[in-house]
Each structure stands twice: as structure tokens, then as C-alpha cells.
């Protein structure tokens, strides 16, 4: 129980301390990373063997109080977030670290609390069972994320931050309105208690299918989709993620969309499974498929590395939404639903690790070259071999080649697609993989082409190690998939085993 408390409060306390303590933000962040890693290493085996652990805050049971629950889904994402944050904090030291003798600068002061607050908000979003508490966490996440986009103060990043803020604010409002309607209708905001009311299941004793419930579900889904940057709400993502400094981009792209996606999973699989209809599932899947193609095509057309990586996120987020049709179907018992659920979580984890690695690689190359244009990348492979291999390995995970975590994900999802007779989604998965190979080929080819005249600024080794470790973690996720696989199964909602609708 103390471990759960540590998981959600340590980053927040660290952020508060980073506000007052001058020029030592990096060390405070490091301490909190160590603390969270310890908490996770206590919690993960415990949860994997004994099942989910609840933390009833203040001792007030829902519906009056708020409960945090450490289940497999929450811990898997919290673990991924901790890995990414650790790597990012190491990489950000060159940009925002300060020696205690120098005067404090704006970036050195602002980056650490913002990154830590974002992390704290993420952990709350993964663990909380209360829809309104999740709203507050999402707002904290949004404010910190937008600030990180704007932190360089360039006109492009300010414009990107504003666009992001406008989208995110509307998303928050839609989500809040939905949560308010659910509370008004059912007198609780707790996901478990909502599930117990069988909302939408008119056949049950307590169930009903009310206009306000359908509206609430639609509004919350739309709001969360905006925050996850699902096509067609993706317009804010690429400029925002590409406009931020590399460590911030890594957090933004790898972690931030995952928070709203986890809430979306919990909403449909745990709280309101009775409200799904085949048309809704197909729509969400269709938007996901559109995102895969549209994001990939846009990634193919970019001439800047960070934009390629950012548009790739649009495409990769599309895969996540395939869980809805894949876990659906029309027969009774659906053995594939659990596979689809697990596969999508693997996809999210693998994408998080690989994408963070790629943005950190881009950061290394920006230091070496001075910008992130593809044309400037000639000869980088021989100049920065370690970073090059990190990028390549991350690419393997992104394209979902074996033995990466991405491959495990695609394998599970493909199996689900074929088993449920929904071949169309299998086609999306396969074509998407080809497209991602295509858009990653261009920077790779450019980096491997020889250019003997090119001179690069030296890059500290510590900066190059972090992305490599992250990329290796993405591979390890596939090689040692047994442990995460069983962790994800703990506390898996019933709908993820029996299928939606």
C-alpha cells in the first residue's frame, strides 16, 4: 500500500521541491526516479501473484471517496513511464542541468518541475478509479505537457502549444461533461461501482439504456480521443511533439497520449461495456485504421526527422484503437478478445519505449548536426554508431519485426483478427507495418550514406546510452514477454475476456 502512495506522490513531492531548490532539479528528479522504481519493483511481483491492490484514500470507500487500484494495466504503464522518465532525465541533464555555482536560468528551473508534475499526473491517471479524479489528473497532465511544448519559446513552438492547448481544453470539457452526466444519472464516479450498475444492459436487473448515459459515453470518448490525438483530431500532435526539445518530445510522444488511452480502455472495458454497439466498435476501429494510413503517409512526406517521428506517433496511436473491433464481434464466447486486449497493451508499451528512444536519438543528432533536417544526416551512422544502433533497434520495434515487443503485439492482434474473422483489421496491421518500414527507411538510408566531408559536434556518451537502453528495453519486452504478459492479465476486466457486445 505504501508503494502505491509512493508511486503517485513521489513525483509530485519532487516537483514541489524542484520549485524551491535552485539548480538541483536533476538530482531531485533522480531521487524520485529511484524511489518510484523501488516502489514498482515491490508492487509488480506482488500484484502479479496476489492480484490487484487497492488503496482507499482517506479510508473513505467509493462512492464517497476515491480509490486507487494497482492492477496489471496500471502497473505495466507505470513501469513503462518510469523507464522512459529515467532515460529522459538522464538525457535532459545536458540541456537543463546546472552546476550549483552558476546562476539559475529559466529552462533549468522550469523543466524539472514540469516534467515531474507530468509524470505524477500520468501515474494518477493510470491508477485512479474515479472519473473526476481522472479529470483533474488529465488537466494537470495537459498544463504540464503544453508548457513543455512551449518551453523553447520559439514562434513555432508557441503556435504549436496554443493549438495543443485549444484541442486539449475542448477534450477536457467533453470528458468532464460526460463524467458529470454519469454522476447525475448514477450517483457515483467510481469505475467499479459504475460497472456494477450494468449500464446499457437493459436485460439486467439494474441496467438501463438512458439518453444521458449514451451521451456521456460519447462525450467522454470524444474528449479522450482528442487528447489521444486519434484521427481526425490529430492536427495538434505533430507540430507540438516536433516543436519541443528532444527530451520533452520523448515524454510527450511516448507517454502523454497513453494516459487518455488507458482511461478510454477502462471506460469501455470496465465501466460501460454494456453500451457498446458493433457500429461504435467499427467506427473507432475505422478511425484507428485511417490514422494508421494517414499518419504514415504524412510521415513519408516530411523532411525533418522529428516530424517523421511525430507523424509516426499518429499512425501508431491508430493501432491502439483496433482493440475495440478486435475485442468485439458477434458470437458469444470470444477467446480472441483477451489476445486483442493484451496485444494492444503490448503495442502501447512497445511504442512508448521505441518512440522515446527515437526522439532521444533525434536529440543527439540535433546536437551533432545543429538541426534535424534529413539532408543533414549524411554520415551520421559512422559518426554516432551507438545512437545509430539505438535508432535502428527502436525502428525494429516500431516496424514490429521479431523479436521485439512490437512483434508480440502485432502477433497477438493479428491472431485476434483472424480468429474473429475480421480479416480487414489484419490487412490494416500488415500494411501499416510496411508503411512504417517505408517512412523509417528514409532517415536510415540518409544516415548510412557516406559523406566524408561532414563534420559533427561531439556528443557526450551519457546522452547516447539512454536511447540505446530504451530501445533494448523495447526488444526485451518481446524476448521476455512472459512476465509482462502475465502482469497484464492480473485484474483484466471481464469484458476483455468475454469480448465487447
Amino acid at each position: 500500500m505504501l508503494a502505491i502512495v509512493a508511486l503517485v506522490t513521489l513525483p509530485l513531492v519532487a516537483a514541489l521541491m524542484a520549485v524551491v531548490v535552485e539548480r538541483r532539479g536533476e538530482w531531485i528528479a533522480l531521487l524520485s526516479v529511484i524511489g518510484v522504481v523501488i516502489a514498482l519493483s515491490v508492487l509488480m511481483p506482488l500484484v502479479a501473484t496476489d492480484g490487484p491492490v487497492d488503496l482507499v484514500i482517506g479510508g473513505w470507500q467509493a462512492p464517497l471517496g476515491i480509490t486507487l487500484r494497482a492492477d496489471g494495466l496500471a502497473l505495466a504503464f507505470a513501469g513503462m513511464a518510469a523507464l522512459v522518465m529515467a532515460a529522459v532525465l538522464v538525457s535532459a541533464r545536458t540541456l537543463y542541468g546546472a552546476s550549483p555555482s552558476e546562476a539559475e536560468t529559466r529552462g533549468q528551473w522550469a523543466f524539472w518541475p514540469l516534467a515531474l508534475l507530468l509524470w505524477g499526473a500520468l501515474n494518477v491517471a493510470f491508477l485512479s478509479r474515479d472519473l473526476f479524479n481522472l479529470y483533474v489528473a488529465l488537466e494537470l497532465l495537459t498544463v504540464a505537457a503544453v508548457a513543455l511544448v512551449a518551453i523553447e519559446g520559439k514562434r513555432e513552438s508557441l503556435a504549436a502549444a496554443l493549438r495543443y492547448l485549444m484541442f486539449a481544453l475542448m477534450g477536457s470539457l467533453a470528458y468532464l461533461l460526460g463524467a458529470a452526466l454519469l454522476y447525475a444519472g448514477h450517483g457515483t464516479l467510481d469505475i467499479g461501482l459504475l460497472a456494477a450498475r450494468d449500464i446499457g444492459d437493459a436485460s439486467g436487473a439494474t441496467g438501463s439504456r438512458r439518453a444521458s448515459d449514451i451521451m456521456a459515453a460519447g462525450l467522454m470518448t470524444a474528449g479522450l480521443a482528442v487528447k489521444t490525438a486519434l484521427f481526425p483530431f490529430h492536427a495538434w500532435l505533430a507540430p507540438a511533439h516536433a516543436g519541443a526539445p528532444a527530451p520533452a518530445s520523448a515524454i510527450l510522444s511516448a507517454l502523454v497520449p497513453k494516459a487518455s488511452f488507458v482511461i478510454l480502455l477502462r471506460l469501455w472495458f470496465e465501466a460501460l461495456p454494456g453500451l457498446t454497439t458493433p457500429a461504435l466498435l467499427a467506427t473507432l476501429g475505422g478511425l484507428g485504421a485511417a490514422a494508421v494510413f494517414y499518419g504514415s503517409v504524412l510521415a513519408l512526406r516530411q523532411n525533418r526527422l522529428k516530424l517523421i517521428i511525430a507523424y509516426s506517433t499518429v499512425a501508431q496511436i491508430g493501432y491502439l484503437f483496433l482493440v475495440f473491433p478486435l475485442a468485439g464481434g458477434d458470437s458469444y464466447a470470444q477467446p480472441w478478445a483477451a489476445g486483442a486486449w493484451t496485444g494492444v497493451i503490448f503495442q502501447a508499451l512497445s511504442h512508448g519505449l521505441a518512440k522515446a528512444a527515437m526522439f532521444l536519438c533525434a536529440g543527439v543528432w540535433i546536437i551533432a548536426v545543429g538541426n534535424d533536417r534529413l539532408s543533414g544526416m549524411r554520415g551520421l551512422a559512422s559518426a554516432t554508431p551507438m545512437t545509430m544502433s539505438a535508432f535502428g533497434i527502436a525502428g525494429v520495434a516500431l516496424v514490429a519485426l521479431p523479436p521485439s515487443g512490437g512483434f508480440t503485439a502485432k502477433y497477438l492482434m493479428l491472431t485476434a483478427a483472424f480468429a474473429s474473422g475480421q480479416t480487414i483489421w489484419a490487412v490494416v496491421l500488415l500494411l501499416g507495418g510496411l508503411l512504417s518500414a517505408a517512412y523509417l527507411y528514409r532517415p536510415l538510408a540518409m544516415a548510412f550514406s557516406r559523406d566524408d566531408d561532414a563534420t559533427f559536434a561531439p556528443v557526450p556518451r551519457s546522452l547516447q546510452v539512454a536511447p540505446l537502453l530504451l530501445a533494448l528495453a523495447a526488444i526485451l519486452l518481446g524476448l521476455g514477454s512472459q512476465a509482462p504478459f502475465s502482469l497484464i492479465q492480473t485484474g483484466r476486466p471481464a469484458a476483455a475476456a468475454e469480448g465487447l457486445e
Partner: protein
Amino acid sequence: MIASATLFGLCGAALIGLGLYGFVVQAHLLRRLIAFNIIGSGIFLLFGASGARDQLASTDPVAQALIITGIVVALAATAFGVGLVLAFAKVTGQTHLPEESDARQRPLKAGLPDRSVQTIVKDPAG
């Protein structure tokens, strides 16, 4: 009590619609923030009214607490938004976002002041 709750709930729904229209149609960023706040208070009214429709006692205290939290959070977002708009205006001299196509980021044109009046609505009084 029942009647006023219903009335204010409907008023909240109307405010959400109004604010949404304003948010979509207007390009001026400050006006969009105003529209955001109008939607927000519409949501709160709807929420509060739904908790006040039982005539047994006063408005649901949990709903009230959530609304207070919501108002504070909205203010925080608004204040940061205003700061962002000012920073953007300081760098570009503009008060709205440039149109942006997906494929390529067009560079911002600097230095052109925004004097556009986005709404063309007749004065209802005359």
C-alpha cells in the same frame, strides 16, 4: 426548487451550445478562451442543477465540491492560456493561430496585426 433546478439545467445546456459555437467560429484566441469559460460554466450549471432536483434537501454537496474544483482548474487553464496568447502575440504580433495544413508547416508571417472582426452579428437593440 425543482422548477429552478430544471430551468438552470436547461440554461446550462444552452450555454454549452452557445459557447461551442463561439469556440469554433472565432479565431481570436482570447475570445476562444472566453468561449471555453462559458462552456465550462454551462457544464457546471448543468451538473449542479442535476444534483439539486431532489426537493428533499439542498444541492448535493459532492457535486458542489466537484464544481468548485472544476472552477479552480478552469481558472488555472485560462490563466496559462492567456499567458500563452500574450507570449505568442509578443513574438508574432498576432492574436490568432495561422491556418495550418497537415502536410507542411507554413512559416508564420510576422508582424501583421490582427484586426479582424470575426463575428458579424447585428445589434439586437437597433
